């Protein structure tokens, strides 16, 4: 049982790390060698993520364990012990699903960067930071240990801020770098404080063990404080609304391909919110309250994100607010699921029945989780097109661009696909997941559904405005002799566009194969998650 698939979880982190450590050294050999090396590493990482996900989704659906430094792979507990003593990775449906998202976005972002960063200085360090960011995101998604999660959270924070401030000659990028780093650090410290409280209470750092302790001992005051700190810190890192002020700066000021990966980073934090709410604290009566908190955050996020996007004149900032609003849709779907789950009988069997009968709570979860994948694809596509547009027009101000459609036909098409998908227009993927969310949230409260639909329509208006400003009208400024983006940029955009269309055309297939196992892992997978580590039920 010592195959590549067994080691895939750890290789998924070790390979990008190897790439990141070696890239500055390889970079001394020249740009070609460095690009080849980074390209190989990224391709290998994506292949490993695919392997991991394929292995899991084809298997029995039981969470698999990887013990770091253990004597054997399947024995986290030494004889006579009840606490896992080593760090371990735990891969369940949700983790495998998230690694797919990250791999997709990284693949597109990194290959886009080869052309995008060609005429810029510091390429080796840029790619090194990009690989570190990827490794950190994979770590957040796979680890089954609270403190290890914090370490990976900090890796993503620092790598992300290094990338946001990478273009030091831009005034705003430095301001954004300082602001984002401060807030990321603060959110990381909230998480660390929560981890410390949980350690003090339970004497262990393993998520499954803490979850089982909370299950048997009940939720104490310290646990509740830790939950509050975790939710605050992680929602801050995900960019949910009361703590969203860093998000538009980060997405807007980072180099375009990096913005796409930063979205995956926010989604990894969102994944952690779901993991904490469903797996760590998934029992007791208070989970309905948590669900309502998520819904309130979601409605605020959707509303503020869209209204702020309406007033932007900066193309990247506009897309950035669009990205903020999409975080709200994911929170809405999962929040509705959480509220419904609390009202059902708390017990594995009853929940499993409801999942097979497609209760509206489960449908909401499917919608929210599917939307993570769709959002990563279409927001990633939009950020990449914005990179191509800004490169061609030399400005980010929508009032100073125009007429790009004449020369940049492919980019125009990709922008339309991305914008329509984001606004939830039927043939594209955004519709597939948003429809599930509308349908399910309507059953909980029509008000939620109305807000979600109206915001989508407003988002369409936002992107029509942006499209009209950038692509239509007379050619302005540099657009007069703007050239189509090079092939190295068009191909990654095309890949994401194909993904957007494929998910839009065959949503049923993707929901059945990858989304449903992920939703089930959260919906009633808590006992399996604990059982995989501690044995028994």
């Amino acid at each position, binding site marked *: 049982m010592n195959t590549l698939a067994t080691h895939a979880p750890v290789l998924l982190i070790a390979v990008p790390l190897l790439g990141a450590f*070696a890239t500055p*050294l390889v970079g001394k050999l020249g740009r070609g060698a460095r690009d080849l090396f980074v390209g190989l590493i990224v391709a290998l990482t994506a292949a490993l993520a695919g392997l991991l996900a394929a292995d899991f989704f084809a298997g029995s659906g039981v969470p698999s364990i990887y013990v*770091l430094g253990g004597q*054997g792979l399947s024995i986290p507990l030494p004889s006579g012990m009840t606490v896992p003593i080593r760090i371990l990775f735990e891969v369940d449906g949700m983790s495998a699903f998230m690694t797919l998202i990250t791999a997709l976005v990284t693949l597109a972002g990194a290959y886009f960067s080869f052309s995008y960063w060609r005429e810029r200085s510091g390429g080796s360090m840029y790619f090194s930071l990009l690989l570190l960011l990827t490794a950190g995101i994979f770590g957040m998604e796979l680890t089954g240990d609270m403190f290890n999660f914090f370490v990976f959270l900090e890796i993503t924070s620092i790598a992300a801020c290094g990338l946001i401030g990478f273009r030091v000659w831009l005034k705003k990028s430095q301001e954004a770098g300082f602001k984002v780093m401060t807030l990321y650090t603060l959110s990381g410290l909230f998480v660390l404080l929560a981890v410390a409280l949980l350690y003090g209470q339970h004497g262990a750092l393993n998520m499954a063990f803490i979850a089982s302790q909370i299950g048997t001992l009940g939720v104490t005051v310290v646990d509740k404080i830790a939950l509050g700190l975790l939710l605050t810190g992680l929602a801050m890192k995900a960019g949910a609304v009361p703590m969203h002020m860093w998000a538009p700066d980060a997405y807007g000021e980072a180099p375009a391909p990096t913005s796409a990966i930063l979205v995956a980073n926010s989604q990894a934090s969102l994944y952690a919110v779901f993991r904490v709410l469903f797996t760590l604290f998934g029992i007791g009566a208070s989970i309905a309250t948590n669900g309502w908190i998520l819904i309130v955050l979601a409605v605020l996020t959707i509303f503020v994100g869209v209204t702020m996007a309406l007033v932007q004149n900066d193309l990247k900032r506009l897309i950035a607010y669009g990205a903020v609003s999409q975080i709200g849709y994911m929170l809405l779907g999962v929040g509705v699921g959480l509220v419904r789950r609390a009202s059902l009988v708390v017990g594995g069997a009853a929940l499993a029945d409801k999942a097979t009968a497609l209760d509206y709570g489960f449908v909401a979860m499917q919608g929210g989780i599917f939307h993570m994948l769709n959002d990563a694809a279409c927001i990633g596509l939009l950020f990449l097109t914005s990179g191509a547009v800004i490169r061609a027009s030399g400005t980010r101000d929508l009032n100073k661009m125009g007429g790009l459609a004449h020369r940049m036909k492919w980019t125009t098409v990709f922008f339309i696909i991305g914008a329509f998908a984001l606004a939830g227009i039927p043939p594209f993927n955004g519709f597939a997941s948003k429809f599930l969310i509308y349908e399910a949230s309507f059953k909980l409260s029509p008000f939620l559904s109305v807000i979600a639909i109206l915001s989508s329509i407003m988002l369409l208006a936002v992107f029509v405005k942006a499209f009209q400003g950038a692509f239509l009208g007379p050619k302005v400024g540099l657009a007069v002799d703007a050239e189509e983006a090079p092939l190295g940029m068009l191909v990654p955009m095309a890949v994401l566009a194909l993904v957007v269309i494929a998910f839009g055309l065959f949503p049923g297939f993707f929901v059945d194969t990858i989304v449903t196992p992920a939703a089930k892992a959260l919906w009633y997978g808590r006992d399996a998650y604990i059982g995989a580590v501690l044995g028994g039920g």
Partner: protein
Amino acid sequence: MGGCGMNQDGMSVIVRTVTRFIYGLILVFGFYVIMHGHLTPGGGFQGGAVVASAFALLLVALGTAGVKGHLNKHLLQSLEEVGALAFLGLAFAGIGTAFFYNLLANTGGGFFGVGVPAGPNAGVLNAGGLVPLMNWAVGLKVMTGIACIVIVMLVGARKEGTE
């Protein structure tokens, strides 16, 4: 102001003389902390930080001009990457069993494979398997990494901070 000029020319003769004397001692102490990381308090991070503080002392006392030939930024950066790769490589060494598996510990003699008696004892240097090696890798990484940050920020802050 004298304080501002110090990173060009360094500080007074007294400070420089004491620095030359004490520099080697700090280095020796730092390397001791790294080497005995598995026996006494300390380890790669702490020892690396001590060594880096010696570099920082050199920079402050002798000035950037005074250390020009001794501390090369590019060399330090490359060494840091080598340290990181060495650490990752040591972690990979046990992949036959699991990532981070300590395959050298308790092999019975040889290369860091000696076992230690249970309970308080004077300590066996040639023990611990991969742990002392990892200490060295991390020590190399930390000392060069922090030295790199200090040099770059000391030189760069004057240039970039006031433009």
